[in-house]
């Protein structure tokens, strides 16, 4: 690992000033960053340790019915918070389907949002990668790319964003609170991650020094608690990233879908909100036909970036099944295998 300097600022303002310097990066739990540093993929000159900053580790219900989640709340603590899991069950299920118990105990909310892609060519410093080294080329394009992007990719980069957590969050219109050199601002989570275009080296809309201090769920996000699921297909049942995942959340009144939220994971460089499919669902009766139609709509713009055409059909089926499960109702208990389509308690044999 390349040598680096280390500072532990006492305040958010000090942290922002330190991290705005060239070569500086924030350290929270480090579960992704340290891995990248050990592999020489990330080579920071300065780590700005934010783990000791006060007040960023709280889960706060807001007066308007929303919820504010501090950036340093641990993934496991959030998923196991009873009020949180009851109000936002698909988010809790997504969290528990990610990584391992050890990693969830350490990894933070802010860090989860900012984790880097798991593209093997990004990780392998002997390969060309436009995300790791701008302009160097993309070895994934003609390489082993069966798990790569089918939406929003470009010739420069076909990597996907690996977060499970972000998928239901983007479906529920989560907002990211950012402290930066010019003070506090907030953006929709949907606007945090960037599609690659010809600058894949920039993962997000963040500027140097920007620190995510909280993620907020708006009041309306609670309205989907009765019909919300996260479903994730992986290469093995546990401790693996999504090949394809989907978060589905519905409000059903008088036999009709009043509101629908849908997002996909593992398909693009960002958590992919499927607004067109939501429009298909709104006002319809929650049945298999409309779920199929929504699934078709969600993948209309998809195209293979390599040996991964199967992901498009897989994504359609996962969308249809996630909607079917959401319509059947949020399970009273977290499934034994969170988000697994193979779980004995999944509630549907086939979409």
């Amino acid at each position, binding site marked *: *690992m390349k040598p680096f300097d*280390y500072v532990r600022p006492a305040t958010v303002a000090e942290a922002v000033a330190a991290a705005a310097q060239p070569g500086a990066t924030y350290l929270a739990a480090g579960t992704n960053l340290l891995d990248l540093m050990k592999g020489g993929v990330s080579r920071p000159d300065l780590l700005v340790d934010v783990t000791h900053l006060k007040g960023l580790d709280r889960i706060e219900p807001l007066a308007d019915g929303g919820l504010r989640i501090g950036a340093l709340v641990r993934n496991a603590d959030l998923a196991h918070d009873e009020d949180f899991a009851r109000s936002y069950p698909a988010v809790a299920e997504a969290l528990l389907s990610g990584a391992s*118990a050890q990693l969830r105990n350490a990894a933070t909310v802010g860090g989860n949002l900012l984790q880097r892609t798991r593209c093997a060519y990004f990780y392998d410093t002997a390969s060309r990668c436009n995300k790791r080294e701008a302009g160097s080329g993309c070895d994934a394009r003609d390489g082993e790319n069966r798990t790569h992007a089918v939406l929003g990719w470009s010739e420069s980069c076909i990597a996907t964003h690996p977060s499970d957590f972000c998928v239901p969050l983007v479906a529920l219109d989560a907002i990211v609170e950012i402290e930066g050199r010019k003070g506090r601002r907030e953006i929709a989570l949907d606007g945090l991650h960037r599609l690659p275009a010809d600058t894949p080296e920039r993962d997000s809309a963040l500027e140097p020094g920007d620190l995510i201090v909280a993620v907020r769920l708006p009041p309306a996000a609670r309205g989907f608690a009765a019909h919300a699921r996260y479903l994730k297909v992986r290469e093995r049942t546990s401790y693996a990233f999504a090949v394809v995942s989907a978060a589905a959340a519905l409000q059903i009144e008088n036999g009709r879908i009043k509101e629908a939220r849908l997002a996909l994971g593992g398909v693009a460089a960002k958590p992919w909100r499927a607004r067109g499919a939501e429009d298909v669902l709104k006002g319809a009766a929650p049945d298999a036909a409309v779920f199929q139609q929504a699934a078709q709509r969600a993948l209309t713009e998809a195209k293979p970036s390599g040996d991964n055409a199967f992901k498009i059909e897989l994504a359609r089926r996962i969308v249809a099944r996630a909607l079917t499960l959401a319509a059947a109702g949020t399970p009273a208990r977290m499934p*034994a295998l969170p988000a697994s389509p193979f779980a004995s308690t999944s509630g549907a044999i086939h979409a």
Partner: protein
Amino acid sequence: MNHSISLTVNGARRDFVLDDPRVTLLDLLRERLHLTGTKKGCDRGQCGACTILVGGKRINSCLALAISHDGADILTIEGVARGDQLHPVQAAFIAHDGFQCGFCTPGQIMSAIGMMREGQAGDDPERIRECMSGNLCRCGAYAGIVDAVLEAQAGASETNRRRSA
């Protein structure tokens, strides 16, 4: 630049001067305290051999910088027995052949102890497999591991019942 940190390791306070911030908790335990029960397997957070409890919660010590954990309370495999009396999870691993070569065993046991404290698995083998998925065993002793954890979990539940009775 040197950095001073202090940790509580298996109940004893330890002070360190770090001349390099790159030291992980795993390397600090092994190289500075010679607590070599915590194993370095993949060193990248994939195998779980380095699992320890920090503040009562299981984490991968290979992905934790020591400098960032100033003041932390750490429990390693060396701290779980009481003298010659094995921790119930240790005893259950022996009773159920929960290992072959033994390299992953300290991590498996620390992970199982952490899992029982989390209270998420109960007596469901499927849940135990899911909750222990961060610990790999290349010998494939998983069947024995699950049985050992089930027995330890049952024993802990029995103890709790007796205490509350």
